[in-house]
C-alpha cells in the first residue's frame, strides 16, 4: 500500500513538473527575464544601441532625474486621478446602471445594456479619434452645441487647454469603460439569490437597505475584481490619451506610459525609459501585493 502511494506521489510530481514547465518557461522568457533586463538597462545612460559599460553607467541617476522631473509628476498625478475618478464616479455609476437594467425586468434593458457596452468594443484609438472630432474647436460637437445655446459662434477647445485637457480625456475613459464594469456587475447581480432580497423586504427593509445589506455583500467578489481591474488598467492608460493628444498640450495629459514613450522612446533615452518602466512595474506590483493580501485575502 505504502509503496504504491509513494509511486503515485512521484508520478504526480513528474506530472506537475511536466505540466507547469511550458508555462513556466514562457513566463520566464517573456515576463521575468525582460523585467530584469529592464532593471539592468535602467542603470545606464544608454541610447538603445552600443555596449553597456563603465562609461555610460549612470547608477541611480536615471531615477533621481525621474523623480525630479515635473512632467513625470504630472504623469503620476494623472494616473492617480484616473484611479480616484474611476473609484468615485465610474464604478458607482456602473453599479447603478447594473441595478437599473441588470435583471431584464425593465423594458428595453437588453437595448440599454448593448448601448452602454458598445463603447467598450471599440478600439481605444478609434474611440480617441471619434472624441477628438467631438472636441474639435472649429467644427466639433461641443462647439456646435455651445454655439447653438449661446446663439453665436463659440469655439470650445477643451483639449487645447492644459487645465481642462486631462478631464476631457477622463470623460472618454469614463464613457469607454463603464460598460465593461456594468457587465461585470450584472453578472454578479444575477448570482444574488432573489430569496434573500425577498426575505429582507419581508423583514421591512427598504430598497436602499436591501442594496446595502444584501446585494453589495453578496457581490463582494465581483466588486473587488472590478476595482482591481480598474486600478491596474488605470496604471496602463495609453491608447486613448495617445490618440487624443500624445500627452500634450505641454505634457499636461501625460500618463506614466505616454511619459515612458515620449521621454524614453522618442528621445532615444532607453536607459531613462527603462527606469520609468521599472517604476510603473513596481507600482503595479505593490498595488497587486497589497490588494491580494488585504482585500482579496480577507475574503478567503
Amino acid at each position, binding site marked *: 500500500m505504502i509503496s504504491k502511494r509513494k509511486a503515485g506521489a512521484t508520478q504526480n510530481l513528474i506530472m506537475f513538473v511536466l505540466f507547469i514547465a511550458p508555462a513556466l518557461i514562457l513566463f520566464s522568457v517573456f515576463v521575468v527575464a525582460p523585467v530584469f533586463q529592464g532593471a539592468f538597462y535602467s542603470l545606464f545612460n544608454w541610447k538603445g544601441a552600443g555596449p553597456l559599460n563603465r562609461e555610460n553607467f549612470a547608477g541611480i541617476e536615471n531615477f533621481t532625474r525621474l523623480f525630479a522631473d515635473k512632467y513625470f509628476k504630472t504623469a503620476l498625478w494623472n494616473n492617480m486621478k484616473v484611479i480616484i475618478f474611476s473609484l468615485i464616479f465610474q464604478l458607482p455609476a456602473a453599479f447603478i446602471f447594473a441595478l437599473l437594467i441588470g435583471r431584464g425586468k425593465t423594458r428595453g434593458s437588453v437595448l440599454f445594456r448593448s448601448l452602454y457596452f458598445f463603447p467598450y468594443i471599440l478600439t481605444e484609438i478609434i474611440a480617441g479619434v471619434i472624441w477628438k472630432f467631438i472636441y474639435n474647436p472649429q467644427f466639433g460637437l461641443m462647439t456646435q452645441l455651445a454655439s447653438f445655446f449661446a446663439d453665436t459662434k463659440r469655439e470650445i477647445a477643451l483639449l487645447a487647454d492644459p487645465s481642462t485637457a486631462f478631464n476631457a480625456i477622463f470623460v472618454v475613459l469614463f464613457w469607454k469603460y463603464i460598460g465593461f464594469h456594468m457587465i461585470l456587475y450584472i453578472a454578479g447581480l444575477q448570482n444574488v439569490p432573489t430569496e434573500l432580497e425577498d426575505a429582507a423586504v419581508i423583514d421591512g427593509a427598504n430598497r436602499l437597505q436591501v442594496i446595502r445589506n444584501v446585494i453589495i455583500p453578496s457581490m463582494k467578489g465581483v466588486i473587488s475584481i472590478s476595482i482591481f481591474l480598474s486600478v491596474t488598467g488605470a496604471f496602463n492608460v495609453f491608447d486613448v490619451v495617445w490618440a487624443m493628444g500624445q500627452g500634450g498640450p*505641454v505634457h499636461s495629459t501625460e500618463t506614466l506610459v505616454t511619459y515612458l514613450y515620449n521621454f524614453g522612446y522618442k528621445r532615444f533615452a532607453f536607459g531613462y525609459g527603462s527606469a520609468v518602466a521599472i517604476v510603473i512595474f513596481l507600482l503595479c506590483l505593490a498595488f497587486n501585493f497589497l490588494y491580494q493580501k488585504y482585500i482579496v485575502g480577507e475574503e478567503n
Partner: protein
Amino acid sequence: MKKVFRLMLSSLLLFAMVTALSANGQQEPADSGPVVIEWWALSGGGGAQDPASEFKKQAVADYEASHPGVKINLTILENEAFKQKIQVAVQAGDPPDIFHSWGGGVMVEYARQGMLRDVTDFVNSTLSKKIGLGALGVYGYEGTYYGSPYDMGGVVFWYNKDIFDEVGVAVPKTWAELIETSKKIKAAGYVPIAMGAGDRWPAHFWWVYLAMRIGGIDAFNAAYGGNGSFKDETFVKAGELLLDLAAINPFQTGFLGASYDDQARLMGDGKAAMELMGQWAPSVETNNSASGEGVTNLGMFTFPAVKGGKGDLKDVMGGGNGYIFGKNAPDEALDFLNFYLSVDRQKELVDIEGAIPVVKGADAALSGNTAELAKAVGQAGYYQLYYDQFLPPAVGEVVKDAVAALLAGGATPEEAAAMIDDSWQMEK
C-alpha cells in the same frame, strides 16, 4: 507510464516547435527568390486616392516591370505614424531598406547605432552627377553619405491673397508689421495665422526663424560650437518676440491642441490668412480642404525682418525630404532610388507633392510660388535645417516642448531657452 511518455513527447514537440520558429526568423533568404526591397514612404495626406501614394506605386510598378528579379514592398505612412513606426523598426534592429528621412541629427543617431548603410561610393559615383552637393550634404555626416534628398525647400509664409485684398493689407516686411497685419485680419473676422501647435514642430519653426533673424548664423554657431549657449540673448529674445505676437491671439481657438492637418485645413478652407510652413504646404492645404481645391489665390513671402536683427533676410530655414538606406539594403535598393530620382519623375513631383526638385534639369517644372521659393533657397547664404531634425533627437524634442510651453504660458522666454540649453549641454 505510457501517459508520462506521451506527455514528454508532446512537450518535446512543443519545444522543437518553439526553437524552430525562432530559428526560422534568422534564416537567410534563399538565393533563388527575387530580391525584396522594403520601402517606407510618406503619404501626401490625400486619403484613399492620395496622389503622392499613387505616384510611388507607379514608380514601383515601372521598376519591377524592367527588373524581374526585384520585388519592392511599398509601405505608405502618415507623417506622425511614420516617425513612431520607424523608431520601433530601427530599435528592433530591423530598419526597412529605403525609408524617408529629413537628414540631420536623427539620421546621425541611426547611423551611430549602426542601422544605416554607408552609401558614400554610390553618392560620389552616381548621385553627385545629378544632384548638387549642398542638397546631398543634408544626408551626409562627416564625409559619409547615407542617402539622398528628393526635395529640398524652405519654410516661408503662405498667404491667402484674396483675404489680404479683402482686408486691404500688404505683405508684412517686418515683425512689427506682421503683428499689425494680423490685428487687422483678425478684426475682419478671419483667423490671421493657422497653427498646429499640438504637433509642436509647426510652432518650433517660428522660434527658430526668429532666432535666425535676431542673431543670424553667428548666434547658432556659437551655441552649437560651444562658444555660446542656447541661453544667449538671441534665443531669449526669440521667445519674447514670439510672445508679442501671441499676445494678440492671432491663432485659431484651440491651436495648442491642433495638429498640422488642422492647420492645413483652416488654410485650405479659406478660414485662415497665413501659415508658416515648408514647400509642401500648398499640396497639403489642397488635400485637406473640404472642396478639394485648396486656396486658389495663394502667395508666399519670406520671414520678415526683426528690428536690429543681425540675421540676413535671405537666410532660410528649411529642409529636405529624402530617403536613407537601412543597414541591410541590397544594391538593388540603391539602383531603384537612382531610377526613382529621374528628371521626369522629379518634374512630376513638383505638382504632386509641391516638391522643390533636387535633380538638375527638373527645376524647369517650377513656376509661380514654387519657383520663387526655389529661388529663395538658392540665394540663402545661411541655410538652417529645422532644429528638430538637425539637433540630436533628445534636444529636438526639448526645442519643440519649450516652444509649445512658451505659447501655452507654461514657460517664460528665459525658461524656454534654459530648457533647450540644459538638454543640449547634456547631449552634445
